[in-house]
């Protein structure tokens, strides 16, 4: 079975990010780019499937990233993916959900797939809309928010997380699945994985090679970013020490009453 995992590269979520109010650009204090944490869960789900289904299952990473992200993409190979395709082209800059989904769809279709696995969100843009849009552009069933993914006899079955529990949803292949953290903690690359990743192929693909002939990025995007501002800072509030439960409760209750919250 041919599995494709979509991987985005984002600023390290554990870094403190700040918008410079004058330049309106992101100030990164020594922060590196990393694999979007949600996509690591997608990789983990793919690796678990491969363990179950056997060696004739392949995992390819498809990543729409700037050319200088090669070493970040290589981490996905070190985790256990077999190869990667990087979609890197200045024409892809300023792509919104619409462009991102159709460029990914074109590349994935070209590569061939039985199952596409996506993370549920990106840590930076956080639209959470690309998996659904990707399924539409690929014209395949999209089973979303899976906390468990099984393939038996060429049929897909997932446990789909809901607010009140989960749903069991089944569908045919080829298909797209997006996953939640419920699939399990992503594995760390082993030393062997890291060494092996150096020999794995990362293919590069540009706008022209993809065969997307119409305009992309800023020219075709259906949304336009007008302004970026830092958020209003939350001021440091009161810090009060309570000697017992009743006193602590009273302090909070009075505060809530004052704010008309109770």
């Amino acid at each position: 079975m041919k599995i494709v995992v979509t991987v985005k590269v984002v600023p390290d979520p554990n870094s403190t990010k700040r918008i410079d109010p004058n330049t309106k650009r992101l100030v990164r204090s020594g922060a590196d780019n990393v694999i979007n944490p949600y996509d690591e869960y997608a990789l983990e789900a793919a690796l678990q499937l491969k363990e179950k289904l056997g060696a004739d299952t392949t995992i390819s990473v498809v990543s729409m990233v700037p050319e200088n992200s090669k070493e970040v993409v290589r981490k996905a190979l070190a985790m256990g993916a077999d190869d990667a395709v990087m979609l890197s082209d200045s024409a892809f800059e300023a792509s919104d959900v619409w462009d991102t989904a159709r460029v990914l769809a074109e590349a994935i279709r070209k590569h061939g797939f039985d199952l596409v696995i996506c993370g549920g969100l990106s840590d930076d843009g956080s639209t959470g809309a690309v998996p659904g849009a990707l399924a539409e552009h690929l014209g395949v069933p999209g089973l979303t928010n899976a906390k468990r993914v099984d393939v038996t006899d060429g049929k897909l079955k997932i446990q789909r997380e809901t607010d009140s529990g989960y749903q069991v949803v089944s569908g045919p292949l080829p298909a797209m699945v997006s996953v939640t953290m419920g699939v399990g903690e992503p594995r760390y690359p082993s030393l062997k994985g890291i060494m092996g990743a150096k020999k794995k192929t990362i293919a590069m693909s540009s706008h022209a090679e993809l065969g997307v002939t119409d305009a992309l990025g800023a020219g075709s995007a259906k949304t336009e970013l007008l302004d970026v501002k830092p958020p209003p800072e939350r001021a440091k509030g009161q810090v009060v020490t309570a000697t017992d439960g009743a006193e602590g409760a009273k302090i909070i209750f009075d505060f809530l009453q004052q704010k008309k919250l109770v």
Partner: protein
Amino acid sequence: MQQVIIFAEHQGGHTRKVTYELATEARRLADSLGGKAHAVALGGGAASLVEQLKRYPLDVIHVSEDPDVDKFLIDPVVDYVEALARSLGPSIVLIPNTMYGRDVAGRLAARLGAGLTSDVTDIKVENGKIDCISPKLGGAAITACTFKNAEYGVVTVRPNAFSVEASGGAAEVRQLEKPAGKTYRMVIEEDVEEGTGELGLEEAPAVVAGGRGLGGPEPFQTLLKPLADALAGAVGASRAAADAGWVPYSLQIGQTGKTVSPPLYIAVGISGAIQHKVGMRSAGTIVAINKDGGVPIGEFADLLVVGDLFAIVPELTKLVQAARAAHA
């Protein structure tokens, strides 16, 4: 874009406050754009939801109780909303920014060739131009986005960001025709209730979240749940608590979890590292209870009470319960 459509997410007719927030905002937007405010309610229980929606200032409520909506995953819903949008012409579709809503939004935008803005907390209209304000990068940036090259706009709206006004309801109710020639392949075989998150965490008016300081799974039930109930809110958790297996990941707030902005957030035994902060920093009021006065959450909470959470929370629950009883 002139017409405004809200997608009324519900389960068996039960919906949440965000639906009414959308309905109220739809009226304001429709008036600014010179169009009408529409709502669409689909699936089992939709008819009873219509009765609720009628109290809000909508023009038309479109409804179908088609059983396919509950039998098959998402596709029937997208088909109905797409057909409605196409029949109304250029429009803006408001969808709650929930797990389900994001899914509907992505697909609908792909079908309609629509622009999509997400997690929107404010919408401004000037000379027909629609600006959507939303926090990005875990709240580190506030962006303004508009639509272009598109006849349709799809907007996922952050719960608790817009106000609710139940007035002027005189909506006409229309039955939707089933979109023709569709076959569905994603079958919902089973719906399993796990008894967690009865109220959607992202939409709860108050969130009581627990962290490492709770020491195990039991206090989430015995300590936090009664307080959350008294506040008509929901229980959440930090990543440490979810990683320890004390609560399901669906309750996790922060990076790789949920983003919430309730009017009231109570953090119990949570230190408030950046991974947690990004999921709750836009809450209205933040109260923290921690045994350590030096925790990071003290830097941005409106009130940090330093003390024994196991002693404070039950007393606080009693006070809130008593106040509610006196009020009722």
